């Protein structure tokens, strides 16, 4: 029997990192090496910045000098623009790591008198590349040529030749292009780009601006086709990727205390799983923040770094309030274990928040993260966006094996299933807090609605908040939801 062995040709492209946070994860390693990538979008979408970051990171971090042919901005202007992001172009060009060549095209000065080609441009580029042995090239934005060169047939064939030349020279290149009405770029540059096309977008909805990035095409690479939010911050672009395109994070078996001994008891006497996500919902004043603060305090006592995002109260307000329930958080701040980050939910778009949260987590590498409350984020955007954002965030936290707690405010009479529906499925543990007034005496109740991977108590207990802290009281037999117990937890039974 004759069997022809199919030749497996591995055509997976070699990639080089852009150095832009998130983009390299998203593309599985960066841009295709030695190929031309198109970055397109409308004016002000951040394409030039992305391209410059690619060059600067290449020169600084990866030992790959770069050439920028800029058709729009002079060297001086560009230097000033990127200096605000902490890049010193002058220094880099002095060290022969970077060349910026401003190509000016003034139509009014140019008359056409017969055949020509763009050898002048080629020679300039080749000269610059040779001078610093460049490995990376940026052409920003080559479309400006369309305004200067009347004969678009010549221009198009010359662009084709230019891109082929760049690839022959094994130069990894970013070409930027202005978005057209119906096409990716106004002049159809995407026709010439075979390997990688990235589209940037900048939208304003309800007065909140969001920037998004999409990998339109990436030959030979599986890539997310979703739109990913990105942020232009103090140190450049950071893209918020879905860190795991597949669910492969390792589930830890280690348990950590909730910070309240009696709550631990309800969870097999051991508390949460490390790396799990915890949702705490409750009506106003039921003690959500107190619960979160106890959790954080216990983590700090174990010597773990905690990051607390607050959207409603200032850190000092939280500290004061927690003192009243017998919890001193100041000492953890002084020891550098507890970090607060207070933001107004509407101060930036949802993506902005997500990007900030990501960045902070990457910088600090905490073991525990609290977001208090996510309700305010929901108000900042549609619930669909919130869900996709939280999916990303929860995924990211799990991959990083960070234990996270999210609080969510529910409203009296509002079926909590609805408000939390968008997010609860992402959560491993869901703790419900509520007010009730049996016999006219108001009290707080707590029960664990779900907790994956453990045999938890499903009984409601009274939550007692006093100067001595949070404690769980007696099992409340009269709770309707709490009576549907699958099996009394051992801890609760022992009690």
């Amino acid at each position, binding site marked *: 029997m004759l069997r022809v062995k199919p030749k497996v040709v591995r055509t997976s492209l070699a990639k080089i990192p852009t150095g832009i946070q998130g983009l390299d994860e998203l593309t599985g390693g960066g841009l295709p090496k030695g190929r031309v990538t198109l970055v397109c979008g409308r004016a002000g979408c951040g394409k030039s910045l992305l391209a410059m970051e690619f060059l600067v990171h290449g020169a600084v971090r990866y030992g790959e000098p770069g050439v920028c042919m800029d058709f729009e901005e002079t060297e001086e202007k560009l230097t000033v623009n990127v200096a605000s992001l902490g890049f010193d172009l002058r220094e880099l060009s002095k060290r022969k790591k970077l060349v910026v*060549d401003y*190509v*000016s*095209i*003034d139509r009014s*000065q*140019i*008359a*056409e*008198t*017969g*055949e*020509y*080609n*763009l*050898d*002048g*441009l080629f*020679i*300039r580029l*080749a*000269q610059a590349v040779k001078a610093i042995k460049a490995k990376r090239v940026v052409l920003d934005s080559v479309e400006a*040529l369309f305004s*200067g*060169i009347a004969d678009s047939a010549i221009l198009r064939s010359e662009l084709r030749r230019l891109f082929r030349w760049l690839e022959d020279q094994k130069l990894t290149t970013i070409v930027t292009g202005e978005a057209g009405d119906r096409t990716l770029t106004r002049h159809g540059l995407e026709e010439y780009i075979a390997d990688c096309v990235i589209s940037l977008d900048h939208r304003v909805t309800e007065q909140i601006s969001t920037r998004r990035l999409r990998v339109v095409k990436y030959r030979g690479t599986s890539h997310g086709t979703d739109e990913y939010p990105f942020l232009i911050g103090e140190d450049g672009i950071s893209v918020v990727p879905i860190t795991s395109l597949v669910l492969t994070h390792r589930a830890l078996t280690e348990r950590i205390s909730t910070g309240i001994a009696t709550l631990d008891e309800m969870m097999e006497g051991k508390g949460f799983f490390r790396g799990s996500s915890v949702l705490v919902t409750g009506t106003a004043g039921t003690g959500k923040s107190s619960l979160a603060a106890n959790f954080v305090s216990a983590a700090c006592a174990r010597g773990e770094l905690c990051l607390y995002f607050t959207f409603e109260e200032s850190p000092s307000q939280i500290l004061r309030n927690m003192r009243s329930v017998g919890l001193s958080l100041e000492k953890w701040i002084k020891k550098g274990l507890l970090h607060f980050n207070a933001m107004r939910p509407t101060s930036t778009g949802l993506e902005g928040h997500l990007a900030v949260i990501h960045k902070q987590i990457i910088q600090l590498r905490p073991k525990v993260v609290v977001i208090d409350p996510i309700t305010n984020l929901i108000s900042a955007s549609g619930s669909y966006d919130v869900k996709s954002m939280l999916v990303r965030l929860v995924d990211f936290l799990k991959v990083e094996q960070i234990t996270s707690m999210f609080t969510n405010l529910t409203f009296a009479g509002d079926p909590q299933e609805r408000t939390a529906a968008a997010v609860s499925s992402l959560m491993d543990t869901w703790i419900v807090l509520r007010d009730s007034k049996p016999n006219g005496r108001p009290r707080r109740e707590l029960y664990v609605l779900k907790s994956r991977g453990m045999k938890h108590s499903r009984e409601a207990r009274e939550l007692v908040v006093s100067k001595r802290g949070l404690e769980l009281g007696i099992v409340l037999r009269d709770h309707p939801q709490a009576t549907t117990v699958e099996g009394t937890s051992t801890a609760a039974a022992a009690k």
Partner: protein
Amino acid sequence: MDKKPSADMKKSAAKKQTAKASRSDFYRLRLYIAGQTPNSIAAIANLKKICEEKLQGKYRIEVVDLLEKPQLAKGDQIIAIPTLVRRLPPPVKKIIGNLSKTESVIVGLDLQPAR
């Protein structure tokens, strides 16, 4: 974009410039080419012919081959090849192409008919 003339101007050119620069109708032209391509050769021939007809005795042509002096491309912002730059009289004018369309060259360089 109007950079000063490059330092490596030919000595003879510099001399002639001082001798004739005062005359406002003197044309100093610089033609950029890249190797001996058909377009380059055509441009040189076309330019000589037009100048002889229109500017007899009142012009100087300098041919710059960018394959030999690539660093000169930046100063005059050369993109297309061939490019002809009218350096004098001011203002600087640029025309591109092999100069085969004589009428366009005359208009582009703003040449007065020979007197």
